């Protein structure tokens, strides 16, 4: 029913590492689409919100984790938008479509994770009764 917590923790930790790499090595897509000096701030937001999300997850502070995850998604998805802008340079309609698709796909993606965590389980849809089992 619930996605395992270690999977979330792994994701948050991975994004923090991604933020550190973005500061040290650099992210060309972000550098090309944003003004100078924006990348460290952007990566800093990813790192801080990743740490906040992990702390909220570990401490069961759901409000804290909710805010952390929102900022994490907001700043990490900016990278996806930057790639979309570079790939579809000048084609505003397609870029808008890409952004809308990403937003819409959040629901099927989260549903997929829930179903993966749930596993292949049968559900009792009717009352089998005693007599039926007795006959077998």
């Amino acid at each position, binding site marked *: 029913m619930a996605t395992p917590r270690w999977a979330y923790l792994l994701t948050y930790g991975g994004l923090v590492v991604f933020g550190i790499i973005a500061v040290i090595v650099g992210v060309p897509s972000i550098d090309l689409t*944003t003004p100078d000096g924006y990348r460290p701030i952007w990566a800093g937001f990813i790192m801080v919100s990743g740490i906040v999300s992990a702390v909220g997850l570990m401490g069961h502070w759901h409000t804290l984790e909710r805010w952390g995850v929102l900022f994490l*998604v907001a700043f990490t998805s900016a990278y996806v938008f930057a790639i979309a802008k570079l790939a579809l340079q000048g084609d*505003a309609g397609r870029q808008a479509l890409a952004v809308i698709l990403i937003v819409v796909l959040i629901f099927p993606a989260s549903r997929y994770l829930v179903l993966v965590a749930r596993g292949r389980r*049968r559900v*009792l849809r009717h009352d*089998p009764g005693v007599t039926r089992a*007795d006959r077998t």
Partner: protein
Amino acid sequence: MLTELEPILWPLVTLVVGIAGKGIFDLITARSVGSVAKMPTVEQIWARLDKVEASLSRVTTDLSTVRRVFRSYVDRVQRGGKTDLTDDERAALDETENHQEAKR
């Protein structure tokens, strides 16, 4: 219009969409943000209690069904029947796993 925005504003757009989404969700579910900010009416409190009662009674029914299926399984095996699980018994077994998971 969305693409006219500067890239710096992209995170802000996502933040606004996320916060607005939570606000809409709270409005739909009529969840109180704080007991002072939005106190449920008496009818809403009774409706909530009915909801809780309904879901609890569903769990109880499921549980008694599962228990009866297992009892009939034990009876069958004791009488020298097959130990292979039928589809219903499998479903009952899976049902216990679901509840175990919900416990956390």
